[in-house]
């Protein structure tokens, strides 16, 4: 079943056939034929962003909140180069997106034409794969192939560069079913012998811990269900990376909280003291491991990952299992049940007692005193007042991001969207727009810092145009908080360029966009202000003025092992006092 059509129409047809309902984009000279086709149809909604970086982050937000592939469409040259940050972000966090870029006509490629850039060259290291499609006959297959690559195996961003003459020319359209994808088929099933070896280790382990990551969420909702079943049946404590929050519910009995540099005390201590570490879809990121030589010194380590290059990359693994988390967990449960559902119950009960002791340290405790809002308190109240809503959270990058991961609880996967690997300030606002497009009736909140938020604030225009009631919850400390924290703790309190001067009046800014602005500085007013934000039917910029010099704890300083965590005021108070805590 092939049909003749122009390349531009092919793009739209291929997107429809791939089940795409939303495209985030920005028009320009080299994509005008595609925009002309978009104009003449109603199946695909096009969301006009205000900057191409926003388009890619919005596509990421859409992808992460739905599990589907996100799509962005931008023009050649600056359109493509502006997409680079989003592509890199999606690569590091394994988010499936397809970015379509326009290109100058094939006969002008290489001539330094207007708005020409070597897009496939620039984006080669920041995509999972990319294509320059020079032939209209090959275009539809390339697009179908691109969707297949984006969502198969370890998901990631792909890019198709489409010269303008290819968009104008006629060619044969072939549907997804006719596209050969056999050349890229990552292994899904894990090796059953290795899985059995892991089950054996699990049966006798005295201090086991599950260390889960974004791979569980990328594997789909079934993987999260299997994980829950496994944890409940074995009574083994479970922690997660920033990327994996929600795979196991925060209200679950075995939940340790997030681990890593700003992870919870009980999570990091359990990782340090375990005798069997079962890594499920995480990648031993440097924010997780701390000092490698002292990382979980006494444990046997198993690692389930769909990407063979993740295994043994930084940590030596005793039981490697290459495969999709969902498939492997299914087999693991099957083998474990068939062998009689054994665990070392007495030892695990003792281990759980130890965990309970660590938990009782209550590492997230803080004191809300006086008339200044502590950022932790703001998030605690936000959690209390929104937890029963159908809620999606995005964040920017910095202290607020870590506090959000610590104080907000996620019960389900795909509810938490944050830039983990790349740490992209400016991610949250467009990501909230992408999530809200996918879930128009849900409560979508971007927990932000004022500095990060300013990086892509132009997207408020998008929120207004498309009536997306995204809530921008800004913890405003008038500082680049995380930078300031590092300067205080590690650079002799020399606060080099880490404060936000000449900040806008966020309420007036909201009003200028036509949105609602709320400012809150008094802890006693906070609940009412948050309720006002939730109840307002439209975009809100919430300027929450918080304590300016609050540090984010717990913290594992770089180059330190997990058990040498700083627990906050108690352990650093002296240091800060001694240094004089000079304000800038």
């Amino acid at each position, binding site marked *: 079943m092939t049909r003749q059509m122009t390349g531009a129409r092919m793009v739209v047809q291929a997107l429809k056939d791939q089940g795409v309902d939303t495209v985030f984009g920005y028009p320009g000279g080299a994509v005008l034929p595609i925009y002309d086709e978009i104009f003449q149809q109603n199946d695909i909604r096009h969301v006009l962003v205000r900057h191409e970086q926003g388009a890619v982050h919005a596509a990421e937000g859409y992808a992460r909140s739905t599990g589907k592939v996100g799509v962005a469409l931008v023009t050649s040259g600056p359109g493509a180069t502006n997409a680079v940050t989003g592509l890199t972000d999606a690569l590091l966090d394994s988010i499936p997106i397809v970015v379509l870029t326009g290109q100058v006509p094939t006969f002008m490629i290489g001539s330094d034409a207007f708005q020409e850039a070597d897009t496939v060259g620039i984006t080669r290291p920041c995509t999972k794969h990319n294509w320059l499609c020079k032939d209209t006959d090959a275009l539809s297959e390339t697009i179908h192939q691109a969707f297949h690559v984006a969502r198969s195996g370890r998901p990631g961003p792909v890019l198709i560069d489409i010269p303008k003459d290819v968009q104008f020319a006629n060619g044969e359209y072939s549907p997804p079913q006719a596209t050969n994808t056999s050349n890229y088929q990552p292994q899904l099933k894990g090796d059953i012998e290795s899985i059995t070896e892991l089950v054996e280790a699990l049966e006798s382990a005295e201090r086991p811990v599950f260390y889960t990551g974004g791979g569980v969420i990328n594997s789909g909702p079934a993987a999260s269900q299997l994980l829950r079943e496994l944890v409940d049946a074995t009574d083994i404590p479970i922690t997660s990376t920033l990327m994996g929050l929600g795979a196991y519910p925060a209200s679950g009995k075995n939940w340790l909280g997030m681990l890593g540099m700003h992870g919870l005390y009980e999570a990091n201590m359990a990782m340090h003291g375990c005798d069997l570490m079962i890594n499920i879809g995480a990648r031993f990121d*440097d924010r997780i491991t701390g000092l*490698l030589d002292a990382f979980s010194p006494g444990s046997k380590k198993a690692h389930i990952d769909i*990407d063979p290059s993740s295994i043994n*990359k930084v940590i030596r693994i005793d039981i490697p299992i290459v495969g999709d988390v969902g498939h492997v967990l299914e087999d693991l449960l099957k083998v474990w049940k068939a062998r009689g559902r054994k665990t070392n119950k007495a030892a695990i009960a003792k281990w759980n007692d130890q965990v309970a002791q660590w938990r009782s340290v209550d590492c997230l405790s803080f004191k809300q005193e006086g008339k200044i809002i502590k950022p932790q308190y703001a998030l605690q109240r936000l959690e209390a007042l929104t937890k029963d809503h159908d809620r999606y959270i995005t964040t920017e990058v910095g202290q607020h991001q870590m506090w959000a991961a610590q104080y907000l609880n996620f019960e389900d996967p795909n509810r938490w969207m944050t830039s983990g690997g790349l740490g992209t300030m400016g991610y949250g606002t467009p990501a909230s727009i992408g999530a809200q497009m996918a879930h128009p009736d849900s409560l979508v909140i971007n927990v932000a810092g004022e500095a990060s938020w300013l990086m892509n604030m132009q997207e408020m225009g998008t929120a207004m145009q498309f009536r997306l009631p995204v809530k921008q919850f800004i913890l405003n400390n008038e500082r680049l908080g995380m930078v300031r924290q590092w300067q205080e703790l590690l650079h002799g309190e020399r606060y080099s360029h880490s404060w936000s001067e000449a900040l806008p009046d966020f309420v007036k800014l909201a009003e200028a966009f036509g949105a609602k602005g709320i400012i809150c500085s008094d802890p006693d007013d906070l609940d009412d202000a948050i309720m006002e934000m939730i109840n307002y039917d439209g975009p809100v910029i919430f300027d929450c003025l918080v304590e300016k010099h609050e540090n984010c704890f717990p913290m594992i300083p770089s*180059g330190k092992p997990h058990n040498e965590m700083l627990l906050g005021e108690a352990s650093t108070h*002296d240091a800060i006092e001694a240094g004089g805590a000079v304000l800038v």
Partner: protein
Amino acid sequence: MAALKIEKGSSKHSAYNLRPNFSDSQETHTLAVVVENEPGALARVIGLFSGRGYNIESLTVAEVDHQGHLSRITIVTKGTPQVIEQIKAQLGRIVPVSAVHDLTVDGPAVERELGLFKVNGDGEKRIEALRLAEIFRANVVDSTLESFVFEITGAPEKIDAFADLMRPLGLLEVARTGVAALSRGAE
């Protein structure tokens, strides 16, 4: 920051842990990468090596299957065993790569390289160069009254040895192809 016990001037001041994690010995491996011959395929492989800081000691590439549009890239690289494993895994991740063979561990392999040597000289030196070329089974592919161009094939070590011998005899210029390699046996 006494309370933090962070030593000034140490790498611990960094946001990253700068200590090398494994200090195993360096090994040289010959990898054969079979890749769909699409535009940019070679750039992906080279970009991977430069982007992730791996070494390339030698690299050859040519289309070996014109019908199937498959190219074979032979790379000689150096690293700790863990880095070599990582290189193979990362190569395997590249979408158009259909196979990665480690000829150093997969069993015995034949490794060959072609070298062209321009040697200038007269009198005794000229005769000596010719005599050594004969011993090394190098062919004369160009000759003037003052110079020879020798063509030699063999393992890289043999070509190194030939180069060492030619140097005092008036070696002017060298061109080498890099290693092409295949596993021995019927498989």
